[in-house]
């Protein structure tokens, strides 16, 4: 069934984007125990900055680097300026504060640019080839390849290097990690910075396929959170695979029920999974803090 391979290819590509973004979420959550609602906006800033700078004449590659740099700095700044000041006994405050930042960042961007939808340079999304009955673009291939490389690289770093060991120590118990000489603060901010980079990649990739406005990363972020919760925010492979699976699920739903089915399919899934799946499977370790 040719149509099926196309649907799967599209789903896998989308799922790889979700997985990349989720990697950033997992890194930040496991080390800082925080879920940032503003994370999608950080990616958006990267994409819009790159686009604006490119439209002003800067070559594409440099523009992308600049955009990524802005996202890295912004996400790190969020940690240093806001998140670090959240007292550990105030559960749920990270969500409220990052909701505020979500709104703030989008509003600033809308003010600097405007609130309309924009089309970004396609970045290879229009150069297509037919593979196994599916039309795949350069952009798709890059996304999937990048996802595989980055996720594998992250896995290797986390499991094979001393940096990875230190990160896992911080995730396990920040106080004990600090007492062994690990610079917990620097590592934490570092994870936020890396997450910013990941968000920028995903945001640029999404923006290269569809017209986007200042809030376009919101639905991506929500889906990424869902995948994380399905797989378990304190793990590695299960949530990332769930992210790819979510992309495929979404693609199948749209193929079966039409373009409009995307929203209800995903959100009904959210409700079903979070409501029905037993708690120990959908672990929210931020509750353990209370």
């Amino acid at each position, binding site marked *: 069934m040719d149509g099926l391979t196309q649907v799967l290819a599209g789903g896998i590509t989308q799922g790889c984007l979700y997985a990349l973004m989720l990697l950033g979420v997992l890194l930040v959550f496991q080390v800082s125990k925080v879920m940032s609602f503003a994370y999608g906006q950080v990616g958006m800033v990267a994409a819009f900055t790159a686009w604006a700078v490119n439209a002003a004449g800067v070559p594409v590659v440099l523009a992308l680097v600049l955009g990524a740099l802005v996202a890295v700095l912004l996400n790190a700044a969020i940690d240093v300026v*806001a998140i670090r000041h959240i007292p550990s006994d105030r559960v749920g405050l990270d969500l409220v504060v990052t909701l*505020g930042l979500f*709104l703030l*960042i989008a509003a600033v961007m809308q*003010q600097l640019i405007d609130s309309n939808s924009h089309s970004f340079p396609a970045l290879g999304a229009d150069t297509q080839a037919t593979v196994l009955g599916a039309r795949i673009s350069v952009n798709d291939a890059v996304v999937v390849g990048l996802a595989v490389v980055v996720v594998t690289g992250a896995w290797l770093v986390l499991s094979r290097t001393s940096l990875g060991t230190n990160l896992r120590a911080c995730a396990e118990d920040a106080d004990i990690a600090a007492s062994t000489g690990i610079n917990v603060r620097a590592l934490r901010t570092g994870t936020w910075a890396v997450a910013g980079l990941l968000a920028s990649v995903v945001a640029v990739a999404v923006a290269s396929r569809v017209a986007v406005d200042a809030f376009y990363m919101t639905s991506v972020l929500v889906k990424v959170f869902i995948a994380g919760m399905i797989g378990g925010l304190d793990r590695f492979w299960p949530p990332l695979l769930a992210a790819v699976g979510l992309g495929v699920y979404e693609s199948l739903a749209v193929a079966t029920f039409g373009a*409009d089915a995307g929203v209800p399919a995903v959100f009904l899934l959210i409700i079903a999974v979070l409501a029905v799946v037993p708690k120990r499977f*959908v672990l*929210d370790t931020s509750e353990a803090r209370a």
Partner: protein
Amino acid sequence: MTSTSLPVRATRPVAVTVTAAEEKPTRSRRQVLLVVAGLLAVIAVPALTFPAFWLFLAAQVAAYAIATLGLNVLYGRTGQLSLAQATFMGAGAYTGYVLGSRGHAPLVQLLAVCAVSLVAGAVVAVPTLRLSGLRLALVTLAVGELFAWVLVHTTDLTGGTQGANVEPLVVGPLDASIPLFAYLLGLLPALVATALVLHLDRTQLGRRMLLVRDSELAARATGVPIIQTKIVAFLLASVFAGVAGWLYGGINGFVSPPDFNLFASVYLLVAVVIGGARSVLGAWVGAAYIVVVPQVFTALGIPNLYALVGGALLALVALLAPDGLVGLARSAAARVRRTA
């Protein structure tokens, strides 16, 4: 830094006397009279002095106050962060619109609004009963998105993305197309809602909600029915919001999906946090913020500032002034009283 010895106490147990403490510190007669007088002034001044447009805004403030009061109960008191409060408003608004456009009387509309809101509240509450924090918020967000999707895909019934013109609410002699009557129509339910929430503060249910928010372990250890409490909180919030939405529709004359989307819910949260999530006065301050501030920024030519300031305030106030503006005012007043 902190003393670790027990406070001094009588060596014999003292019989409980008439002056034993009530639940809240008793207010002096003068305080009560001041509050009542202030309240009457706040109610009467707009009615007597405001020009039409301001009365119209005041009416909307009253309507939104019902919604923010609901969110105060659900989030401020019970600790459930819901991003569906505007969705509940929408459910009420569109129910009112659909029935009103078919010629049903306001009372019928109100009953239907309450019924629909109760169902909506239950639908959202059930999946969230064992959730908290982000997962809870995401489920409420998902419900909101689903509702928005339904609105857009039922154009025949709801007017879809174009929105719908709502007949002005007419209750007896009060016709909402006249600003003064709109104000009264919004104010009276808002006062009822306010009284209800103030009363809640002195009930066992109110205390249960607080404990559910602050420590589920302690709630379990004292026998508080956690699930029942959460459901009641959601139902109160949804009914309040539904009524608020209905009034908003009947006063504003127009409803459309953006009025009740995720951002509307976030703005309701902003309002509640800025005003003070735990206080009734805070809910009113928040409602005033939602209605008045966008007007101000639009008049200044920078409508975007509403989102910008809202986002900044949400983050800052949540971090630095957890009890909101009302909390800040109260501690400032307490400090003044101490130095006086």
